[in-house]
């Protein structure tokens, strides 16, 4: 049993992560009873606000409820104290992400928002310099693979690998920290001896099934998101769910296209910079995904700018930053693809700029992933998965009482 730390100034500390005022909350529970996503076994936001008021930081960031909220803003609209519980939930997620980050970068950029630009400036200079000056042929011998605009394919490829591994490490550490945190504070675990009661194969099975359930329901279909009260969405504009889904699927599609492209062109054909016709399926996948992503982010940015509803009312700097980056990634990616098929003399002056912006924004996006709100795309499904798994274990244990040896048949003599 570990000891829980109490942070008396937790709420003040959390002010860096969003603008809410839960000091005024008088714990009436209106928010909880209003929230369309609350179920009998999970109560938020009030319970989490209470944790924050009590300074129970560890419990707060380990709670599943954090990730069960999709910020519809219903609770804030009904809070009699105008404490803005929805924004509190959002801030708690940022706070959790910052606390899972082992490097401390996240905390510092939320504390001082200007640091994020410093971070982007430094990495930007490195990347641009690498792109423009690095002649990777010196290391790798092969200079044939020049991309449009004269950049070396290898620079992007190997540079990406190096950055990627570093980020991967940070992410893995964060995920581990999250798992440990949940493991230590999760009340479900207190079910006596549950883990020893279940056999390894049962656990593996549950882990596997809950993984798929989470992936499909939370990742692919975003069912919980959709369950949020539809009445709050006027019919004439795309719902938040549609917007979020297009961004998610656009993102997944682009990632898939990139990976497949690498597999096919680099590993199979050994011609990574080669020309492909527009109907080439992977290319098509990339184009469609990019357009989806542009659609979603454009609407999201526009709605946030116009503050069309409670949900879009409060935007933190990372909302703007991440959305803008995604938007630029989508736009420049789309343009770059277009340029391949346009007469080269027409687009010549533009190629370099577009490509550099594209590479820069993609890199920034990934480099910000473990440190900002963007990290929810890992932490949310993960937390929901871990919790689902724990719940399934309990359910399993309850429906399969301890296997006691069959009583040996007793001969009755009549």
């Amino acid at each position, binding site marked *: 049993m570990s000891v829980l730390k109490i942070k008396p100034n937790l709420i003040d500390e959390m002010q860096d992560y969003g603008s809410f*005022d839960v000091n*005024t909350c*008088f714990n*009436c*529970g*209106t*928010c*909880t*009873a*209003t929230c369309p996503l*609350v*179920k*009998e076994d999970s*109560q938020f936001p*009030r319970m989490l606000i209470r944790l924050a008021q009590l300074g129970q930081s560890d419990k707060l960031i380990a709670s599943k409820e954090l990730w069960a909220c999709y910020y519809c803003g219903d609770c804030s*609209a*009904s*809070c*009699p*104290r*105008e404490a803005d519980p929805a924004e509190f939930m959002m801030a708690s997620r940022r706070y959790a992400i910052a606390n899972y980050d082992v490097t401390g970068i996240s905390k510092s950029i939320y504390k001082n928002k200007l640091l994020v630009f410093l971070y982007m400036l430094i990495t930007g200079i490195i990347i641009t310099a690498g792109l423009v000056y690095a002649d990777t042929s010196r290391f790798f011998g092969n200079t044939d693979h020049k991309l449009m605009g004269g950049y070396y394919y290898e620079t992007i490829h190997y540079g990406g690998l190096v950055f990627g591994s570093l980020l991967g490490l940070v992410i893995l550490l964060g995920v581990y920290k999250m798992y440990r945190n949940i493991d230590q504070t999760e009340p479900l675990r207190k079910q006596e001896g549950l883990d020893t009661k279940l056999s390894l194969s049962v656990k593996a099975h549950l882990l596997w099934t809950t993984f798929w359930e989470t992936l499909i329901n939370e990742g692919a279909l975003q069912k919980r998101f959709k369950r949020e009260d539809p009445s709050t969405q006027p019919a004439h504009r795309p719902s938040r769910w549609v917007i979020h889904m297009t961004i998610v699927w656009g993102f997944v599609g682009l990632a898939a296209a990139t990976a497949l492209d690498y597999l096919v062109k680099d590993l199979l054909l050994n011609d990574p910079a080669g020309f492909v016709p527009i109907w080439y399926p992977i290319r098509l996948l990339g184009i469609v995904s990019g357009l989806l992503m542009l659609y979603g982010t454009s609407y999201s940015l526009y709605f946030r700018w116009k503050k069309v509803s409670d949900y879009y009312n409060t935007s933190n700097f990372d909302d703007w930053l991440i959305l803008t980056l995604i938007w630029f990634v989508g736009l420049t990616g789309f343009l770059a693809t277009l340029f391949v098929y346009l007469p080269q003399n027409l687009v010549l002056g533009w190629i370099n700029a577009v490509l550099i912006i594209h590479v820069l924004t993609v890199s920034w996006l990934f480099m910000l992933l473990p440190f900002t709100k963007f990290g929810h795309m890992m932490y949310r499904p993960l937390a929901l998965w871990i919790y689902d798994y724990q719940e399934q274990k309990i359910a399993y244990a309850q429906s399969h009482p301890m296997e006691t040896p069959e009583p040996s048949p007793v001969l009755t003599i009549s």
Partner: protein
Amino acid sequence: MYEYDALIVGAGISGIQSAIDLGDMGYKVLMIDKQSSIGGTMIQLSKVFPTLDCASCITTPKMSTAFHHDNIEVRTLCEVKHYKDLEDGRFEVILKQNPRFVDMDKCTGCNDCAEACPVAAIDLGYDEGMSYKKAVGVPFATALPQKAALDIESCIFCGKCANACPTQAINFDHREEEIPINVGAIVIATGFYETPTIREKYGGGKFKNVITGKQMERLLAPTGPAGGVFRPSDGKSPGSIAYVQCAGSRDATIGVPYCSSICCMFAIKQAMLLSAAVPLAEITVYYMDIRAFGKGYEDFYEEAKAMGVEFVKGKVAQIHEDDETKDLTVSVEVFGEDGGIQKVDHDLVVLSMGVVPQWTADMSKIIPVQLGPDRFIREIRFTEEPGLTSIPGVFAAGMATGPKDIVDSINSGSSVAGKVALWLSGGLREEYEVQYIPLIPTLGK
């Protein structure tokens, strides 16, 4: 120009108390009210907490004492139109006398006019929308003056009342009049309204079986419209009744961030009365905290619990209405051991609405008393000299300065009468020269 020692604006329980005390001291008092009868809110009520005395048994004698007092003149349907501080300790006021369309001298209060009147308009006044009323007639059984009044808004000008009246008292030629007076002091005792805004999540006033505390007060009163408690949608007797506490108070979203101070106690009182009026009904009070602060209040609360009224800790977040049956379901996060989100069915829901002042910022343009951040009239030194407003010589009593229960309102009326007497005898001048410290700097956040 008529001259009086004091003008009392508002003839509710605290205004009446001020008037009686001043009259008894020998001062000449004019008491006005914009309604057609004096009595204010209290005359509408059923019983009072924590003694369960009948409310009208307290109010009616006080009303008639004031009304028949030699030193007190009463004007109904009358408002303040213009005010001027003469800077010599006196004020010039122009009153607006609204037309009654009934000659007070001729009317005998026989109510034949009401018998003859074909109109049935929803009674938004005395009966809080729980019954219908005629366009003309004596306002209610214990009204003072016992004279008919004609409501020109709902009148259809058929003339049947005029024909029915045995003394030809109905007079459609009445017009608004201006009455200039000169007074030595003014007491504002304009009382309160129930919080007018009902949360959207509580139906926003559209659910038939969601009623307010004051409406329940009418149903429970012996003078009530139906002689019993019923569901407005179908007239049935409710089997389960819920009280939603803080429905119109401590809620910044509807502009009432303060505690209205009376709702806990009137809900407990009504719950007790309901146990007797509808013996089979289950009564549940959803509350955040019970504020039973006065003398004997906590015992009263304990008594209600002992009588079987169920008190559930949790603020109701939403009320759903069934389209067909008009039954209601409340959603609430209940606190305690087996707490959690609960959805509970009820036949009738009573919203314990809070109070907002009747004296508005617009009225402060006529008599420029300062308002506090809660929009009640600011008492410049309310902990030491209650009742003093920002204008020397103008006093405020009862709910006009903030939420008060009946005991406190009567107290306040009496204490302000004392202040007025002091003022009229030349005292109380230095009190206004002290550097006033704002006592309620902010509200809500």
